């Protein structure tokens, strides 16, 4: 099941809210969340519910044993065993085909390539489990003694299949004690409405432009301008798609009384790549920072090699394909360059130049992200600078720009924190009620229009769903 679906919005979510708020005690509410999360996950792939529950059960016992044998070798052993199994499951389901293919390519053997169907959201819930186990081992959190509470944390449907990656420590106290205020519900409603609008009104319509040129069109003959136009649109599509999903997840969490961390903070206003990754998919970036970057794997050389490892993993996490690895290392390279230059010098760069630098690097990065076919990726990169003999300008792209001018302009504006700034301004002018009433109207309009656009909609999956 996906969020941008009428059945989810008007049947599943409605029933879930009713059941949740009929129950007054937290323990019953936790069970409501578990039941609905299982239905949510089983909706398209019932078989994988067993994998999810099995994984939670195994890590539940691992957590208990790690706590029982704390500060002994056995604790380390149980931690290692749990991590090996968790990562092993991820490798089998997500990477086995890719690894065997590449092994076959560089060796004389010809092993059969496994065709394993990947359970939805496995990358996200595996990382949540890993964070739980490591935090248990490091003593950052108290081990969860209740199996069903751990199951609720891992399987909670708002963040189950496409993040954000919610750390156990973030919601640890709220599992047993959470207070739902009317302010939480109001904020949650706003986040859901805005998130749905980002996905359905903006991202879905931007995807049509991208498909026209990158998927259905003849890439080799696309002009330089057309290539830049399409890849910029694609960057915005991914942003609105994924941040829209995160908004809905955070909004649902708020209504249920959980306070998830933000996953996006207007990444396109960044002045450098380091800052961009502090604003883009924050939960993934902080995960690698906390669980991989500062782990002394490479001894004295860890400064650079850990950085390489982090960005290799960041890319590889997104998919079993070389373009994702290139994508991760591409960003790692720029972050290394920025570190070498130093923060002070980077800050001295004129603001306009810094934004241009950041935008170009990020946008090209999204091109690398899009093309899983390395041949097409090469064509795309050549197109950007006219290396394929393609023209600078073509009428098709120009007409497409005109046909979608307002959509693209609105999207560019909404990539910047214009709405929060406007609300702040209205409130400073003592127009608080105008600001909040405007937000309410916007919420209803966004939800209503999204619902209309979802009638018999096709081609609607979230991009990060596949990860």
């Amino acid at each position: 099941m996906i969020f941008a679906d009428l059945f989810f919005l008007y049947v599943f979510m409605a029933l879930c809210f009713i059941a949740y708020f009929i129950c007054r005690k937290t323990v019953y509410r936790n069970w409501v969340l578990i039941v609905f999360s299982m239905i949510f996950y089983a909706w398209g792939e019932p078989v994988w519910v067993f994998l999810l529950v099995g994984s939670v059960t195994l890590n539940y016992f691992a957590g208990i044993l790690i706590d029982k044998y704390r500060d002994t070798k056995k604790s380390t052993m149980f931690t290692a065993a749990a991590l090996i199994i968790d990562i092993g499951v991820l490798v089998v389901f997500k990477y086995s085909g890719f690894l065997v293919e590449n092994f076959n390519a560089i060796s004389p053997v010809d092993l059969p390539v496994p065709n394993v169907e990947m359970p939805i959201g496995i990358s996200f819930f595996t990382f949540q489990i890993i964070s739980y186990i490591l935090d248990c081992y490091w003593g950052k959190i108290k081990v969860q003694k209740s199996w069903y509470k751990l199951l609720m944390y891992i399987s909670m449907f708002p963040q189950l299949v496409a993040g954000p990656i919610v750390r156990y420590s973030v919601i640890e106290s709220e599992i047993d004690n959470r207070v739902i205020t009317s302010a939480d519900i109001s904020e949650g409603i706003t986040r859901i409405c805005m998130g749905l609008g980002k996905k359905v009104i903006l991202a879905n319509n931007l995807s049509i432009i991208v498909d026209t040129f990158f998927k259905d069109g003849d890439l080799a003959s696309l002009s330089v301008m057309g290539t830049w136009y399409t890849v910029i649109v694609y960057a915005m599509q991914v942003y609105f798609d994924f941040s829209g999903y995160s908004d809905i997840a955070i909004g649902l969490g708020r209504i249920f009384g959980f306070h998830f961390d933000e996953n996006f903070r207007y990444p396109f206003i960044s002045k450098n790549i380091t800052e961009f990754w502090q604003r883009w998919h924050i939960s993934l970036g902080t995960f690698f920072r906390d669980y991989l970057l500062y782990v002394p794997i490479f001894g004295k050389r860890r400064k650079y090699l850990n950085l390489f490892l982090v960005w290799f993993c960041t890319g590889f996490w997104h998919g079993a394909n070389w373009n994702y690895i290139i994508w991760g290392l591409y960003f790692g390279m720029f972050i290394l360059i920025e570190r070498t230059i130093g923060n002070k010098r980077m800050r001295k760069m004129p603001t306009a130049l810094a934004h241009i630098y950041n935008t170009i690097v990020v946008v090209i990065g999204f091109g690398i992200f899009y093309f899983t076919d390395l041949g097409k990726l090469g064509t795309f990169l050549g197109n950007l600078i006219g290396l394929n003999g393609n023209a600078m300008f073509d009428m098709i792209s120009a007409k497409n720009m005109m046909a979608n001018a307002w959509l693209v302009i609105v999207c560019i504006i909404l990539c910047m924190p214009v709405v929060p700034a406007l609300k702040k301004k209205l409130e400073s002018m003592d127009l608080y009620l105008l600001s909040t009433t405007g937000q309410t109207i916007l919420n209803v309009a966004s939800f209503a229009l999204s619902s209309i656009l979802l009638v018999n909609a096709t081609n609607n999956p979230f991009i990060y769903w596949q990860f």
Partner: protein
Amino acid sequence: MADNINDKELEELNEIYRQKMEALKNSPKHEHEHKNKKVKTVVKAESSEKSSDKKNSKSDSVNVDDRKKKLAIRINIGVCTAFFAITAICLIVLPRPTVSETEKRNLATFPDFTWKAYWSGDYAEDISYYFNDTVPFRDTFKSIGATFRSLFGFSIDGAELNGTISQVNSGNSQTEVTTQSTKPIQIVIPQTTESSDSTPAQTDENSSQTGGSDETSADSKPKPDDSVYIAPSDPDAVIVAQSGTQIAYVGSDGNVYAAVLYNGNRSNAEDYAYSVNTIKEKLPDANVYSMLALTQSTFITPSELSITDYTELSDSVFISNMLSKDIKVIDTLEALLPHKDEDIFFLRDCHWQQLGAYYAAESFAKAAGVKFADLKEYDEYGEYCRGSVYAATQYDGLSEAYEMFNFYVPKNKYTTEYYNSKYEYQFEYPLMPTSDYNSNSFYSLFMVADSYIKHITTDAGNGRVLVVLKDDYPSAMVPCLTSSFEEIYVIDVRYCDFNVIDFCKEHGATDVLIGMTTESALGEIGDTLSYLVNLQ
């Protein structure tokens, strides 16, 4: 209001202060310092009151902000929840449509529960699909959605551009065209042994849709000009609306046309070929035919609008070349080319007219060696209809662009039974229910709906039993075969829950026709056929 009360109190304090001062003036016994003390006390009191006022004022301000915030929160929750609840109730309670008049199709039905469907995830997905597909007032909402999308762009040359424009040649010699060559593709169809030797073709399409029976080739005597296929061309065609691959475009003649752009993926060709070859392998005694029906994208849509590297024609040849020699290929190019100037396709709908289907059926009947009824043996009807592309694009220029839908009801005797996807009997009904079909859903004239499996029993009396495995496209062709086969089973592979080879065996099929568009064969329908062939 709080400020007014404080002012009043302040005024009273000032009055007290003035009275005290007056009293002091009138009393010489009072010491000077005494006086000062009093004054200080009053001033202090005044100051204290002022401070208290300030505090109250700030507290009131905070209360006001809190009240505003609470009010805003209540409004937000109340309004949004009310909207959400009303919409949810309407979606659940209001009757759901079963047919889309603008899209001319039956809408999804609530799926039947089976454990198999449940564990595969299909059951749940079908419920979601049913819910999304049958929203009350869906056509109205889709129209609103299309209107909203039309706001994305500018109006150019009087044509409202919305959605996307792809692969359009502007017609301006100054501009570059990023599409494939606009040079017309010419190929020659080998009609006879002599003709195939005489003229080499220019593209890979020249190999033609091979496999057509010798009988077919020998009987066909088209005019020399009719043997040449020239890809349609209109360099000035401009797309004015698009939804996926469905487009509305303005031709160089200024008229608005509609098309569904061919978007087949050649890399999936093996699935279809494997399925057809397997059917023949498992049914060695039956005649197995493959018909990859060519559509208006080959005959009418300007090639400049193409969005794929390969054409429908070249892909159909590519697939046909992967079929075993025992498969008889029905060459629809050969069947339709001599009639290309007749009304064999709609100009604003993705289907062929029944006349086009008739010529394809004629070609098939010849390949099967059965008799075929002349057009005189049909009752002819005609009605103006609106093409399906309007529903997808909601382009205003298509809303009133009705065109004549001609259809032919065979006069011979036959009965038609309708079954569900598990082949459970449902009802008996006319093959072409002319009395109660809807002109806005005109293709449902052919055998009511694709979702039913049909069993047609005719007076042909030749013992031939035909099973048709198809997508929606060949529906118009089936009525043309009622004089040719004694029994006809029609199965749309999208609505079938059993192994089709077993079905053919159980029903004594002498002939099996696998008919669909090339894009269907290369897409999900081809995959579905593969699934049904292997279904245990």
